[in-house]
């Protein structure tokens, strides 16, 4: 690791002001990606501003049909939270199969979506549930937030404060774990909103990062059942291919995981 200056911010405003002062500052929101990358000397931030102790970024609120998870809430706290389990159990489940216990004690939802790893789990949940990302400056719909591999709509120095999820009628998530990293080799989140809209998002599959799967959405809109997906054709072009999964395999996984997610959603 290169030398860096560590700051522990006590408020969002302080974090913003520390960020502005650093020449190449980075926010630390759990550090499950940033710290390994720094240890390998692949990142050399001048300043690391830890958001982990900011109280206003912690916690979960359920208000009517909206579940709000503050950005600094750890995976462990999300998966244990009674409101999450009650309102959107698919999120609790997704979180329980994310990484491993050590990751879940440290990693945060804000850190995950700000990083937007193409194989991360949360982006699929946000996209399928039509969530809204709240920052210190504005609100961004999930559809507008994820912009491709490791790229988001966030501006330099902008801090995610919370994610708001409309509580769906039904939702489910299933993933095939990457055997080495335990990220999603492919994961699919399916949701049916209370107004009957169907949204399906796949992670780990596309060369462009998390994506909606229109063909499956259409099939499920017509018939919310696993068998509705049988005849859907998923093209392997533009899907990721590596030593752990060919593009054809990932195309298959999109279908199979979607079917199982529908079963899980009930």
């Amino acid at each position, binding site marked *: 690791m290169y030398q860096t200056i560590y700051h522990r911010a006590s408020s969002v405003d302080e974090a913003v002001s520390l960020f502005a002062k650093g020449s190449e500052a980075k926010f630390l929101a759990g550090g499950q990606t940033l710290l390994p990358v720094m240890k390998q*000397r692949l990142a050399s931030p001048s300043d690391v501003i830890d958001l982990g102790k900011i109280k206003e970024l912690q916690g979960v609120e359920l208000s009517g049909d909206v579940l709000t998870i503050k950005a600094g809430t750890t995976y462990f706290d999300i998966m244990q939270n009674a409101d999450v389990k009650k309102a959107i159990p698919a999120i609790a489940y997704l979180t329980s199969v994310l990484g491993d216990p050590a990751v879940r004690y440290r990693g945060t939802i804000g850190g995950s979506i700000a990083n937007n790893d193409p194989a991360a789990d949360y982006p699929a949940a946000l996209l399928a549930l039509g969530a809204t990302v709240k920052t210190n400056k504005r609100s961004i719909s999930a559809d507008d937030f994820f912009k491709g591999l490791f790229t988001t709509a966030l501006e330099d120095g902008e801090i995610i404060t919370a994610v708001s999820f409309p509580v769906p009628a039904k939702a489910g998530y299933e993933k095939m774990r990457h*055997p*080495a*990293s335990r990220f999603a080799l492919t994961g699919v989140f399916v949701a049916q909103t209370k107004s009957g809209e169907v949204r399906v998002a796949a992670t780990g599959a596309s060369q462009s990062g998390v994506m909606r799967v229109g063909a499956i959405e259409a099939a499920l809109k017509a018939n919310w059942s696993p068998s509705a997906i049988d005849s859907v054709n998923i093209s392997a072009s533009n899907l990721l291919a590596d030593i*752990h999964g060919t593009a054809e*395999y990932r195309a298959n996984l999109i279908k199979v995981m979607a079917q199982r997610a529908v079963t899980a959603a009930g």
Partner: protein
Amino acid sequence: MGVEGIGARVVRKEDKRFITGKGRYVDDIKLLGMTHAHFIRSPHAHAKVKGIDSSAALSMPGVVAVLTGQEIVDDKVGNLICGWAITSKDGSPMKMGAWPAMAPETVRFVGQAVAVVIAETKNQARDAAEAVVVNYEELTAVADVHAAIKAGAPQLHPEAPGNQVYDWVIGDEGAADAAFAKAANVVKLDVTNNRLAPNAMEPRAAIADYDAAEEHYTLYTTSQNPHVARLVLSAFYNIAPEHKLRVIAPDVGGGFGSKIFIYPEEMVALWASKKVGRPVKWTGDRTEAFLTDAHGRDHVTHAELAFDANNKITGLKVKTYANFGAYMSLFSSSVPTYLYATLLSGQYNIPAIHAEVIGVYTNTTPVDAYRGAGRPEASYLIERLMETAARQLKVDPAALRRQNFITQFPHQTPVIMAYDTGDFNASLDAAMKAIDYDGFAARKAKAKTEGKLRGIGLSCYIEACGIAPSKAVGSLGAGVGLWESAEVRVNPVGTIEVLTGSHSHGQGHETTFCQLVAERLGIPISQVSIVHGDTDKVQFGMGTYGSRSAAVGLTAILKAMEKMESKAKKIAAHALEASEGDIVIENGEFKVAGTDKAIALPMVALAAYTAHNLPDGMEPGLKESAFYDPTNFTFPAGSYICELEVDPGTGKTSFVNFVAADDFGRLINPMIVEGQVHGGLAQGIGQALLEHAIYDSNGQPITASFMDYSMPRADDLPSFNLSHTTTLCPGNPLGIKGCGEAGAIGASAAVINAITDAIGKNNLEMPATPDRVWRTIHAA
């Protein structure tokens, strides 16, 4: 058996320090004035080193020196050696290219060191290494074994035309050809034995400390065999004569073979310590471990098995290409030859065997012994062949095995090994009973109704362990003897220190070796200490690998114990005014048999050291040593059966049951044996399902981190169902066969046989990843 004697499930003495973080590993050691080394490693798989500019680095904070490959060559530090000479079928010796500790001219794999930075801190060394400019001229690389032997392939070493190290044969080709000519059925199989990265939990590390006044070096290193390290460093690498070089291997966090070898980093640390006049420490990181720890396996094989009309095996023909990587590591040459082809008879009566092994250089990390070393490759091959044969001949795979089992012992195979004892039917019976083999068909049918493909796979392995009779291995080209030494020191107050040339890096010797002493003397193991891992303390030893420490090392301790006991009995008889022949040892006392006359061990020891009243002519003291050279290999064997389900939608495998029935001869500590089997099975299953060290066609490693290389985790593994059948090894007085490698040797075939049974297709390579299994299911 006493409460802490042979056969007792004694809790490991060493675990108190390991589980409380008090283990003392090389990286925990800090010497006064110590500097830190960081190696500059080639990013290219094959390149000329045109120049190294270290001027900027030398002026950076804390930098002590930047040393290059040319300097180590100029200082006449020897090239790395390969310690086992193999002769090709045309009578020529194996063809080896030179391997300098740091490359002066040519790099041949990604990660090969070209220079080293020595600095006050580790981070300063790393910072400065980034400022060293190495000018490379890239050359075409080759990573695949078949590509490497093609005409026109990039050539690695001028000494080895066609990248061929040797073309070695074993067995009787004429007899094998005759068997195939008459065969009623021939079963053919092509298999790849996937390359693995060893991944010991503790990365390799070294601290070298040169004392200019004494012209003496001390090396702390992560070694499975510190005496062999000293021998090689002294005799071949010109570091220092043996009496001027002390090698200490303190607590070592796993080896699996990868810490047998003497690596360039230790050589450079020693050399650099003299150069800079200060201690030099190097601790590898995980990336360096992936790039530079000797890899394992990497065979490509075609094999054919001949059967007569009654399904009796009549012949076996094998042709294997072994990928050695860019250089010949210390024992690499023996792994695909004498440790592999000599086990190709498996548990079966095969009258004629012929095997050809072609060793090949590629631009990849060197390959050497990794848990099992050759024997997993042999066992995997023969057990895949037997399963394939059963399917082709449409007979039950267990029945086909039984029909061909060796049942008379000793049994001379056509490939050197003479099996001393075993009962292969007994272990297969035990495994089949444990898994309810007969009920499998019903379970498979039920699984089908649930949309799952269920399969069962057998693997009846045999291995040659207790490595090894020195005369035998010497006749086969080994450069060392493979005996073991021991010394038993009884202190004046009766406590005991046992010095052993074996080295524990996870095996639990500090417990099991004490159990032998407890068994013989009837004293608690708390009164016994095991001393190992320091060439200044233990006179000599060959170290720990090849499941040899109990069969060979513990037998050496037994021999030393017998000498010590004999002298102690004389002292006791003298003190008790009895005949030496009447003395028996019980509960820590020397007793006159049949009487209540006794003298406790501490009093015997005290008498030996006060020497006030010893028998006439007896030397004072109570300390004996012994060297033990085994008369034969030992032959642990067993049957593993795996039952699993494949999810046809994803190709994912889920274990239902995994049973292992092993015959290890006598068990010293069944709990530790079970731990060894669990670990071995994890590695065998890891090879079957998860692990693969992969290079692209340019020799760039693709799996150099745990984000890409799949190490097995607890939730990848089933809860193992273990049992033992026992035939005592006649080759050593304790009847021990060894247990350290069995799991890794036997497990992978059981898993692949089960998956191929489940999916109904036989062509499936390791690792059987979900993607690969899914594609195989859906292949035309």
